[in-house]
């Protein structure tokens, strides 16, 4: 069947509901990838416009204008400037929001200057009545030289109309709606004569931006002495912006009327409470508590269930599959490994659920506003709050979220300290250690001791982040302009579909990203643990039999053989060789291996111990990881391996150490240098080692 496929790019300011329109157009037919070489999310989806026409919809990152100030915004410009890009759109759909139409149109007029067929979507049309807004659509269409689709992604109206406009994109005008070159006629005339084959606005963008665009190289323009000083350029850009707003204001004066009497202003009322000098903070900390509550206690129910299910599945596989190497691999390597990944889903999902609701509702901007002054004392920005909170899910998206911090110094400090916040991957490590060393008692009858310990660890991580930021702020000498601008969007009830899709997508990315590493490591660990060099491993059974006969040792033969084998396996040998370094922290070689492998991803710690212990124990009954750990006996002292001293030492190590390779990789990408990730690695891990050492030596 021959169906034609159109390429559509969705462009728009942040907070215009662009993603809602994308979700409405594509439904579940979407996938998230990466632009080559950079870590900007590339969201693409397929929309069935009519029985015979399909469209690939590309949801470009939100941008306020075509003057890029961040990596995300660069993506938009680079695509629109390069006709040869495989994603270059047949039609551009600019999404605006009815209440902020004036500001949103600035970007629209810029896109029109690129002479791409452009459709204007005016979203959130359901709010018009409430805000007393009326639009003269035919007039606006004529003046803006476009077709308009009034859409309400909330009420799901207008999407069919938009689809029709996309199908008939050839009827769209590609004429610019104003002549921006009037800001300096001589200069632009000159430019036009020198490059008769190039679009004037493209040339202008190439001159003002610091990037190359497609086949038009920046240097080509530079040699023609068209480049002006930075101050001159900025003055021209200001003139350009004024010019565009003049045009927009003139158009809207006729086409857009607001009856202020009819408008009800919920925003002002909500702002008064949410940014109140007392209640504002109370509400914010209340929300934080709610988030932590959900991670600590609500998600434990599905997590326990997952933990137990995988333990029984593993036992079931071991019993029912024909004995052999493959069965061992499945029951001792793959199943526990998979369990170690899936167990995170509830916590990750809860975290992204909250973050997504806070962002969608417009509340996050208020938090930034409330916290900016406080954060600045520590060299951070109000915008650092978002990375620091997201850091409780995973440091990788958190570090990426630091991108919209304008000041380089504040951004760098945010990137450097974010890994201190307790990410969800550390949670299973904490959870299992706490359940082993802290009794399940209540303090004063209310506070769960285990919960309090967990809370303390979170506070420790957060405190350390703030403290290091303070130190870094004193030490770092980074020059650069410091400024801060944040839009305060109107409050909205989050759309279920947006939130749900966001949670699914983020959880999926995390599970598959980290999952691959965890699964691969589980299999490698299993192999290293069930094979060994030399005769000791092979002849384990005879050696143990002999020793039993000579009464040198006592105990169940099977268990003894298993643990002897483990000690003489590859993993045992590796573990023993690093033991001298970790012994002063109270760790044996099994814990050592878990600590080392967990550098791939934190949660691997639990998975590794699970793998090591399930390799080590041959009893058929199903045991959960916790029971296995609790049963570990230190052969020297005869006490439990996971006693208070070792447990606390481990907890502190995980609270402060550099978390994982992926964090280092993302820091490298975002700072564009190996210097900063290395500083993180050495400083954080060194500090963690010292703290754990001191703690163990005092407690033991």
């Amino acid at each position, binding site marked *: 069947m021959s169906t034609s496929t159109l390429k559509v790019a969705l462009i728009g300011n942040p907070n215009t509901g662009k993603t809602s329109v994308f979700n409405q157009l594509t439904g579940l037919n979407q996938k998230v990838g990466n632009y080559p070489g950079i870590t900007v999310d590339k969201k693409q989806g397929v929309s069935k416009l009519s029985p015979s026409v399909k469209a690939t919809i590309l949801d470009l990152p939100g941008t*306020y*204008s075509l*003057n890029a*100030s961040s990596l995300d915004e660069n993506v938009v410009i680079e695509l629109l400037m390069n006709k040869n890009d495989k994603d270059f759109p047949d039609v551009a759909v600019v999404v605006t929001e009815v209440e*902020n139409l*004036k*500001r949103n149109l*600035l970007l629209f007029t810029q896109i029109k200057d690129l002479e791409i067929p452009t459709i204007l979507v005016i979203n959130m049309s359901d709010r018009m009545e409430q805000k007393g807004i009326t639009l003269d659509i035919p007039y606006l269409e004529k003046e803006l030289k476009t077709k308009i689709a009034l859409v309400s992604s909330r009420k799901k109206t207008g999407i069919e109309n938009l689809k029709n406009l996309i199908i008939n994109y050839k009827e769209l005008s590609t004429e610019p709606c104003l002549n921006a070159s009037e800001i300096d006629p001589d200069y632009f005339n000159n430019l036009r004569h020198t490059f008769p084959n190039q679009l004037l606005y493209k040339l202008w963008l190439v001159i003002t931006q610091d990037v190359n665009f497609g086949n038009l190289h920046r240097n080509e323009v530079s040699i023609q002495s068209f480049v002006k000083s930075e*101050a001159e350029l*900025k*003055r021209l*850009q*200001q003139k350009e*912006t*004024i010019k565009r*707003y003049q045009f927009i204001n003139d158009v809207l004066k006729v086409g857009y009327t607001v009856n202020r009497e009819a408008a009800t202003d919920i*925003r*002002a009322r909500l*702002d*008064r409470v949410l*940014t*109140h*000098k007392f209640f*504002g*903070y109370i509400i914010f900390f209340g929300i934080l508590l709610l988030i932590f509550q959900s991670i600590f206690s609500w998600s434990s129910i599905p997590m326990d269930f997952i933990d137990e299910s995988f333990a029984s599945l593993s036992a079931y596989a071991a019993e029912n599959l024909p004995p052999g190497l493959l069965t061992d691999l499945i029951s001792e390597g793959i199943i526990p490994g998979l369990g170690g990944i899936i167990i995170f889903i509830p916590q990750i999902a809860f975290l992204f659920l909250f973050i997504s609701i806070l962002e969608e509702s417009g509340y996050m*901007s208020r938090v*930034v*506003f*409330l916290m*900016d*002054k*406080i954060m600045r004392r520590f060299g951070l920005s*109000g915008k650092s709050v978002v990375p620091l909170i997201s850091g409780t899910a995973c440091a990788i998206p958190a570090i990426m979220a630091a991108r919209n911090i*304008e000041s380089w110094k504040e951004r760098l400090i945010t990137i450097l300290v974010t890994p201190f916040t307790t990410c969800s991957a550390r949670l299973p490590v904490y959870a299992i250690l706490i359940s082993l060393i802290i009794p399940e008692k209540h303090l004063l009858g209310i506070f769960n001791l285990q919960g309090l310990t967990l809370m303390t660890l979170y506070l420790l991580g957060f405190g350390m982040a703030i403290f290091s930021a303070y130190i870094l702020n004193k030490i770092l000498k980074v020059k650069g*302009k*410091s*400024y*801060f*601008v*944040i*839009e*305060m*969007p*109107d409050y909205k009830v989050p759309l279920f579909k947006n939130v749900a899709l966001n949670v699914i997508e983020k959880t999926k990315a995390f599970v598959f990203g980290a999952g691959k590493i965890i699964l691969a490591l589980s299999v490698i660990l299993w192999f290293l643990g069930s094979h060994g060099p030399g005769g000791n491993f092979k002849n384990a059974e005879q050696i143990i039999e002999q020793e039993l006969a000579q009464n040198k040792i006592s105990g169940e033969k099977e268990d003894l053989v298993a643990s002897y084998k483990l000690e003489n396996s590859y993993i045992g040998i590796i573990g023993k060789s690093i033991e001298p370094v970790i012994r002063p922290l109270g760790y044996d070689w099994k814990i050592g291996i878990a600590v080392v492998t967990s550098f791939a991803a934190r949660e691997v710690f639990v998975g590794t111990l699970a793998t090591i212990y399930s390799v080590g124990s041959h009893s058929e009954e199903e045991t959960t990881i916790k029971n296995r750990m609790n049963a570990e006996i230190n052969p020297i002292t005869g006490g439990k391996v996971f006693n208070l001293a070792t447990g606390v030492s481990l907890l502190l190590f995980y609270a402060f150490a550099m978390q994982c390779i992926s964090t280092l990789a993302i820091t490298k990408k975002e700072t564009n240098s190996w210097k900063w990730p290395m500083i993180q690695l050495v400083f954080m891990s060194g500090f963690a080692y010292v703290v754990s050492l001191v703690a163990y030596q005092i407690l033991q």
Partner: protein
Amino acid sequence: MKITLAQIKKGQKALINDFNVDVIPLKLLEMGCLPGNTVELLQVAPLGDPLYINVNDSHVAIRLETARQIEVEIIKE
């Protein structure tokens, strides 16, 4: 008397007169913070900084140091 955006009171409206382009971020200009436009101070953060303003119908928050660079004229109601 010349005053700046940092000096107006909560709830007051003012007209933007002029500012030094070099120190004002382009992003703020794009939000509509331009000479000739009106600006209203909506909220001041609890510690006196940043300021939450409505400029040219855009709702944005900026820091005091930026506000000090923007010369305004109070509009008498």
